[in-house]
């Protein structure tokens, strides 16, 4: 096989892995948008906040440490213990559920029946608040997140492909694990929504609020549930991104990459979020590989957005979105 083709295959595989992470973030958006019609701008910051909280708990940081020290003149530097990864993940999940509950009771409850743009503005506010809160609670330095996931080149794939083609593929173990976890996560979400009564209630609310009320579904409960699930998805995304490139505040910017993913896949479709993520992931890596050298590189910064723009012109509802039918 020619080298160029082998390179392209390797790039495609790596693109798929990157796409999985985009898809994870996009999934959080879709869940909330479907259930409540809210475009949650804060989804990316939720991933950041979840990752920060996870690191903070694992390293035994005292929340608001700096603030407490400055205010009371104390010299607190951590609890002095370390929490095992699994327990820390559970505790972080508890924090995310509390956050979901607080968002609903403090913010969204008062905005029922408001225009979508107002709800959207509220989530922008939420995003900045959460970013500030994360900073205040856990500090703004870049942290490494190590929950014990395997990292580095997968030697088995490297050797196998080297023996077969004379060229070893570089696939990161972390990307493989991320893919596996993403598949499990999506399978669990599908099972939840199809086979449990809460899942059925969730689909009902996503479909028609009035009808849902009339069969005894509490919208508030469902919204807290959806935001909790979105918080869980954010946590998973935060762990993956954090393990890959450290927990830092630029993590919240990955949310922006989810936007073109959603435009491709449709804002209301879970399969759409996944396929959209994969297309963007593969597309931008391949484009950089094939066209990048001709235009001076750095195409990964804009490729996704241009692709989304093209989709907006020709298929505004996305690949899997609900068809837009206008009654005249």
């Amino acid at each position, binding site marked *: 096989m020619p080298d160029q083709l082998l390179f392209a295959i390797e790039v495609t595989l790596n693109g798929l892995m990157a796409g999985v992470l985009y898809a994870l973030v996009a999934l959080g958006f879709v869940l909330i948008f479907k259930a409540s019609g809210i475009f949650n701008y804060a989804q990316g910051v939720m991933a950041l906040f979840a990752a920060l909280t996870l690191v903070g708990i694992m390293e035994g940081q005292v929340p608001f440490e700096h603030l407490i020290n400055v205010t009371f003149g104390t010299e607190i530097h951590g609890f002095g213990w370390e929490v095992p990864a699994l327990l820390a993940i559970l505790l972080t999940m508890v924090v995310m559920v509390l956050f979901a509950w607080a968002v609903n009771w403090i913010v969204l409850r008062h905005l029922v029946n408001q225009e979508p743009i107002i709800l959207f503005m509220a989530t922008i506010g939420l995003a900045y608040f959460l970013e500030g809160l994360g900073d205040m609670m856990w500090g703004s330095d870049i942290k490494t997140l190590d929950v014990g996931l395997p990292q580095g080149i997968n030697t088995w794939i490297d050797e196998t492909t080297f023996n077969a083609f004379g060229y070893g593929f570089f696939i990161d173990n972390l990307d493989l694990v991320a893919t596996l976890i993403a598949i499990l996560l999506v399978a669990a979400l599908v099972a939840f929504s199809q086979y449990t*009564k809460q899942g059925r209630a969730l689909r009902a609310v996503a479909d028609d609020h009035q009808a849902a009320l*009339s*069969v*005894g579904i509490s919208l508030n409960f469902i919204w807290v549930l959806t935001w909790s699930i979105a918080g869980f998805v954010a946590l998973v995304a935060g762990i993956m991104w954090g393990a890959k490139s450290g927990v830092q505040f630029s993590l919240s910017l990955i949310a922006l990459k989810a936007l073109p993913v959603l435009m491709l896949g449709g804002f209301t479709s879970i399969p759409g979020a996944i396929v959209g993520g994969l297309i963007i992931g593969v597309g931008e890596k391949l484009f950089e590989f094939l066209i990048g050298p001709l235009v001076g590189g750095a195409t990964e910064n804009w490729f996704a957005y241009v692709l989304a723009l093209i989709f907006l012109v020709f298929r505004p509802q996305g690949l899997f979105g609900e068809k837009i039918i206008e009654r005249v």
Partner: protein
Amino acid sequence: MTGPGMSAGARGRSDVRDSLDHEVTADGRKIGGVLMDMRSITLRFGGVEAIKNISFDIREGEIRAIIGPNGAGKSSMLNVISGFYVPQEGEVWFRGSRRPPMKPYQVARQGIARTFQNIALFEGMSVLDNVMTGRLTQMKTGMAAQALWWGKAQREEVENRARVEQIIDFLEIQHIRKTPVGRLPYGLKKRVELARALAADPMLLLLDEPMAGMNVEEKEDMSRFILDVNDEFGTTIALIEHDMGVVMDLSDRVVVMDYGRKIGDGTPAEVRSNQDVIDAYLGVSHD
């Protein structure tokens, strides 16, 4: 749901049963005590009074109709009963105790199911799934139990599924069980909505214009289903209709509304001979 309101209601029910003697209709159905009592209800939207000081009751086992011309306040009244509107004045008594202001989902959990004038179904879900949502109030297994104790949740699902299949058979919609509701014609959608409401095994079933927009044949089918539901399950039914003919055949007692006021209340025969009712329907000037 097991709130304090519920237990008070349960107690109230036995009081009612003890204090009232049953009546038997000409066709052998049993009409019991007062199930729902609306006392001096007034509902305003801004300066407009949609319902003006109306009182009436619904008795166990009967088919109670609310009729009146367009804009009379019929749907508003149904929305008060089902908790979608909260009246500014008046009291709602259900099963012998006064009902505090409630959210619609709480009302549903008390055993009051409803359909909507403009059909509110879950368009993206299959007929079976739609009807299954009607069982949500009957399914008690919590979320943690569903995740951890799969067997119990599954058994509950199977039990509820059996009841749902029974209702689907009863309303003769077996052939469309797996069809997404969005694809169904109007008449069938109405029937699916009735099935979903029935699936809750409601104590009180509210039907908002169940025959609106139907052709004669569909109307006859729907009338038959309503009568059968009342007859076989003993379900108490309150329905809104503006087609006088249909209502007179179906119902045991009729409330007539016009411009937010009650202008008649009684058996179909009584109502038909009521001069105010005749005037309202023939369009006698109101000023």
